[in-house]
């Protein structure tokens, strides 16, 4: 069993993919990691549907109905759910719209913002239903581990993933913790 690769899924909800970029910032260590892990659904391989996994890594907060479906699928399928980054942990910068009326926000972005001509608020039925507030991940599902940072440093991803690969409970010291 020790040789079995750890199966990992990742997603970005209301995030900027900065956390995913920070994960990739482990640089050449990714070659070593690749010997011990395999990716399930992740934007890195463009697989859209999640299957049973050991670890789910969730970036971003919850800003629309699709985010909830993805997040709940992650929780159902992942033994260990890891929330990463300020947006997943606190709502982050997207949650700064939480005290702005949603319609005012849309109009500012799509109709009245600088450089827009004949702007319209998108209303395609395929677009996910936006929520009036952006929520952190832990308000929707149980989270097993939180990695703070905007983004969490590459060394924090490395420490936690190598702990998980080795079957240890992940720990990290204060020097790897920054909320910004």
């Amino acid at each position, binding site marked *: 069993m020790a040789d079995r690769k750890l199966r990992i899924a990742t997603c970005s909800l209301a995030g900027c993919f900065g956390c995913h970029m920070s994960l990739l910032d482990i640089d050449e260590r990714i070659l070593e990691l690749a010997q011990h892990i395999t990716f399930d659904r992740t934007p890195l391989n463009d697989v859209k549907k999640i299957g049973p996994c050991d670890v789910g890594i969730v970036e971003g907060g919850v800003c629309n109905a699709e985010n909830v479906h993805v997040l709940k699928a992650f929780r159902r399928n992942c033994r260990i759910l890891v*929330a990463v980054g300020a947006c997943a942990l606190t709502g982050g910068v997207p949650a*700064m719209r939480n*005290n702005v009326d949603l319609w005012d926000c849309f109009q500012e972005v799509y109709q009245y913002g600088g450089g827009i001509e004949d702007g319209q608020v998108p209303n395609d039925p395929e677009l996910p239903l936006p929520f009036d507030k952006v929520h952190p991940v832990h308000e929707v599902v149980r989270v097993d581990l*939180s990695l703070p940072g*905007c983004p969490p440093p590459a060394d924090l991803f490395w420490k936690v993933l190598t702990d998980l690969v080795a079957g240890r409970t992940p720990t990290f010291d204060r020097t790897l*913790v920054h909320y*910004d």
Partner: protein
Amino acid sequence: MSGRTFTLDGQPVPFTEGETVMEAALAAGVYIPHLCYRPGYGHHGSCKVCTVAIDGHNAASCTTRAREGMAVETATPELADMRRALVEMLFVEGNHTCPACEKSGECELQAVAYHIGMAAPRFDFFFPARDLDASHPDVILDRNRCILCELCVRASRDVDGKNVFAIGGRGIRARLIVNAASGRLGDTDLAKDDAAVRVCPVGAILRKGDAYTKPVGQRTFDLRPIAAVAIEEARRERERRRG
């Protein structure tokens, strides 16, 4: 050699008559996490982050006078849990968006949260609607980040002699108010060099034009943890008082 002492986690700590547990601990080089206490300012005892167990009973160390022979505990798992819960509640009660805050790296709420090992608040976020007052030419007041520590109230009243700030309202409606009929900071006699501006432990009262002048990695709490900064600050205040 006949000085008075109490014990702090079993170690003897000397004190002089009238000193608080917090003051004696800092003088002995022991950091007790705190937010509303600041050396040189009147004691307030509102944040409760500095709560310690004194002979088995919890009390705020910043408002409790040291007594001969008292047994004080601070580094217990129970107190650590309680402090973490208190700080997490402060984070969810306001709008503390560290990645978008000019005070990040200089913020004591953030630094205390690092010290007590908070990865993320466990509670649901309030996302309260709070005002931002940019009416003053040199100072901005962002109530989203205010933790109601009253340090600015004390600084303005006791150091600046101006009484610019007060806390108005009760409970969840409590908020920082300013001493002007209009309610606007720009209509007060606050000046950018006032102690009330400098003393804010969070990003609620900020000087305009000072944001992001220190690069990430060079900010106060990038370089040193808050424990070292607070012990140093207390030492400077003791030297200032001795003259």
